């Protein structure tokens, strides 16, 4: 098995300073940041020693933005300007939000994604999330005493392309270099699997504040392979709060409450839910704005009865994921519980009953995702871990195109291992047709109207031909973040059109740059100095990586190629010495181009090394 040894292409030959990288769990209710310190993953607390950061952002009338516990404490007082559970709105249009009436916010429909009306202006959920991430970045940099090289940000496995892209945009807006978007259950599996040396088929049941995910993973030595994933991106602990809230309204005969009273009772509902995790019953008291007093007793039994349908709702994606993975509940070796909502005893019982075994709860369900993300960030940043492992993840929802008659043609089926690419050929249906519109969709349903529309673009300049003569190849490429890029190419003329699937809802690069420059925090940071540091760090790691590559595989280059590469490397070293951001970027770009054939040959060699001598007979 010596052939299975893994090279370390991105790693430096020289002993390198530990590169600061973090994992961030950007949750609906709470967010966390974690890192690997002296080989152990650990959550970074705030200055009061608190690990969790409530995902609450308040835009105050003095112009300040406050995040976390302070904002949470003020939410009943200022519900319209205090944004909670913003994750539910990421990458969503107004039509997608089922519970508009239930939120105290005023929404405006913006292209692709809603915005919230606050006293600080219209805020996109991306901006609100960026405020949470910025807080965590500052916490991490203060605690680690340096600038972060990058972060792994977790997303629900069931997030679609729009929600993933929105999350990545938020991280960039917060000044974070995104090393990878990582699926939350997969992050949990890393933390769990590495801790427990687990082998076999595991299910991760992840019930967060606002999202539910289930993933089926095969854990073999050093490989975490996701077999199937499913979920519900608008089901979580919040919904349990809401059931209690509705029960309070019913019991007290309340209706037409103000935003303030609504927020107050939702907070009481959440407290009651948490109390019922450990106690058989709990008392709910509140004084409404008009002086009316609420005083109710809620028992666990009643709570279980009013929340049963929510739990049943989580078991449907579980069945779907098992079916997709082609296994039965009995084949599962363990069920890992993730997310604060899995603390509820009735959830643990339902999952235990379903799988016929008690679920695994030995890791803190609030922290496990952030810890897994930190472990992955540490490896991606190039800090060698003790173990090398491989993560093979999948896309949660099928990707396809609109065809004639408003039907969806699936190009990449759900649960395909990423990265993946698929091409499909189409043709024109009219004589002389010179343009073809491409409508990209995500979802499982047959009708276009039942799927999520990701983007539309038009391939123009097709030479006029008779109907059916043109050959238009549409290629879908999904990268390791689960993000899609689509290109369309007319094969006879070579006319090409491509799109990164974001303009219909995401932020353009220009918008992000503008927001970054607008942001006061970043002006104070001194954008130029930051850009120079980033360019130098990137250039250094590029040079380091090439030094390592040349040390082992220089024989793949002839003398002229080697000379050209050496020259480009020296040019970059000179630019670094001169501290010119522009020259560093230009020389890095040139060096990247010059080293591409070398990189390709090394990749070939690595695969061949891994596979040589391995065939069916020897395995």
């Amino acid at each position, binding site marked *: 098995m010596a052939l299975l040894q893994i090279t370390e*292409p991105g790693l430096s030959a020289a002993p390198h300073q530990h590169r600061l990288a973090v994992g961030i769990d950007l949750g609906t209710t709470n967010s966390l940041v974690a890192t690997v310190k002296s080989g152990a993953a650990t959550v970074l607390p705030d200055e009061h020693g608190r690990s969790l950061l409530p995902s609450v952002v308040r835009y105050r009338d003095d112009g300040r933005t406050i995040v976390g516990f302070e904002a949470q404490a003020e939410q009943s007082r200022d519900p319209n300007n205090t944004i909670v559970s913003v994750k539910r709105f990421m990458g969503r249009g107004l039509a997608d939000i089922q519970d508009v009436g239930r939120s105290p916010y005023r929404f405006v429909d913006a292209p692709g994604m809603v915005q919230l009306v606050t006293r600080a202006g219209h805020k996109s959920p991306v901006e609100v999330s960026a405020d949470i991430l910025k807080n965590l970045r500052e916490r991490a940099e203060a605690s680690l005493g340096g600038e972060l090289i990058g972060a792994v940000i977790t997303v629900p496995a069931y997030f679609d392309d729009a929600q993933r892209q929105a999350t990545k945009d938020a991280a960039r807006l917060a000044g974070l270099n995104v090393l990878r978007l990582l699926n939350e259950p997969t992050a949990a599996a890393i933390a769990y699997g590495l801790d427990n040396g687990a082998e076999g088929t595991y299910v991760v049941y992840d019930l967060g504040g606002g999202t539910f995910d289930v993933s089926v993973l095969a854990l073999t030595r050093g490989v975490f392979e996701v077999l199937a994933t499913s979920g519900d991106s608008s089901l979580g602990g919040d919904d349990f709060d809401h059931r209690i809230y509705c029960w309070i309204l019913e019991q007290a005969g309340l209706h037409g409450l103000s935003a303030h009273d609504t927020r107050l009772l939702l907070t009481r509902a959440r407290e009651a839910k948490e109390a019922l995790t450990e106690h058989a019953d709990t008392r709910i008291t509140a004084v409404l704005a008009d002086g009316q007093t609420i005083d109710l007793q809620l028992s666990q039994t009643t709570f279980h009865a009013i929340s049963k349908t929510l739990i049943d709702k989580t078991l449907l994606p579980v069945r779907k994921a098992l079916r997709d993975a082609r296994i039965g509940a009995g084949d599962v070796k363990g069920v890992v519980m993730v997310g604060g909502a899995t603390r509820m005893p009735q959830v643990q019982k339902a999952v235990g009953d379903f799988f016929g075994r008690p679920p695994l709860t030995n890791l803190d369900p609030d922290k496990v995702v952030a810890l897994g993300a930190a472990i992955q960030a540490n490896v991606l940043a190039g800090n060698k871990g003790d173990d090398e492992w491989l993560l093979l993840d999948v896309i949660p929802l099928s990707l396809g195109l609109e065809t004639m008659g408003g039907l969806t043609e699936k190009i990449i089926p759900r649960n395909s291992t990423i990265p993946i690419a698929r091409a499909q050929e189409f043709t024109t249906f009219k004589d002389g047709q010179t343009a073809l519109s491409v409508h990209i969709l995500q979802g499982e349903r047959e009708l276009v109207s039942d799927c999520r529309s990701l983007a539309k673009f038009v391939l123009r300049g097709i030479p006029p031909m008779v109907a059916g003569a043109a050959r238009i190849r549409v290629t879908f490429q999904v990268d390791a973040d689960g993000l899609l890029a689509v290109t369309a190419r007319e094969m006879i003329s070579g006319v090409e059109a491509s799109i990164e699937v974001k303009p219909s809802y995401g932020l353009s690069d220009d918008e992000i740059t503008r927001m970054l420059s607008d942001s006061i925090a970043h002006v104070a940071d001194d954008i130029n100095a930051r850009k120079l540091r980033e360019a130098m760090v990137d250039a250094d*790691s590029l040079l380091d990586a090439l030094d390592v590559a040349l040390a082992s595989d220089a024989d793949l280059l002839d003398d002229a190629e080697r000379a050209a590469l050496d020259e480009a490397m020296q040019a970059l070293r000179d630019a670094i010495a001169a501290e010119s951001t522009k020259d560093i970027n230009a020389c890095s770009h040139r060096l990247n181009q010059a080293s591409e*054939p070398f*990189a390709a040959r090394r990749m070939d060699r690595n695969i061949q090394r*891994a596979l040589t001598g391995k065939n*069916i007979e020897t395995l």
Partner: protein
Amino acid sequence: MTADLFSDFQQDHFALFGLPRRFALDGAALDTLWRSAAAQVHPDRFASAGDAEKRIALMAATRVNEAYQTLKSPLARARYLLRLAGIDTAEETNTSMPPAFLMAQMEWREAIEDARHGHDVDALERLSRQLRLDVRAMEDELGEALDEQHDHASAALLVRKLRFLEKLDQEIGDAIEALLF
């Protein structure tokens, strides 16, 4: 530059993994080969490398995954073998089928419809299991036709039949989901 880019990747999917070009395949061996190839090229290994290496890694990992997914699925593998032999399986255009097969298809459809109307998820699960047994039997025939008899015409017909069964399996899955969700 692109001339020698992935010189070895011009190989067919079987050659990439060093496997013989035939239908019969040891699934566990393929899994192991795929994992070791994927371990070499996965973009996670190049997260802090230069852009060129990142780009190449994405291409190489995509290529390895595509080869694996094609070979892993018996239907895709058979279709691919036939394509390598220059045979178009004509699944979209050639819909002529033996009457007995069409008859069986209608019976399947009726059984799925009945179960759907009866909201009987267990019945649908049973149908799914039965269908997967049928699929397996047909895959054995396909192996015979491709590896032993080298009968491309029969193999192409079997691929078309399997495509029908795959659609049925999808219908059962959709029906189960529609009832559960």
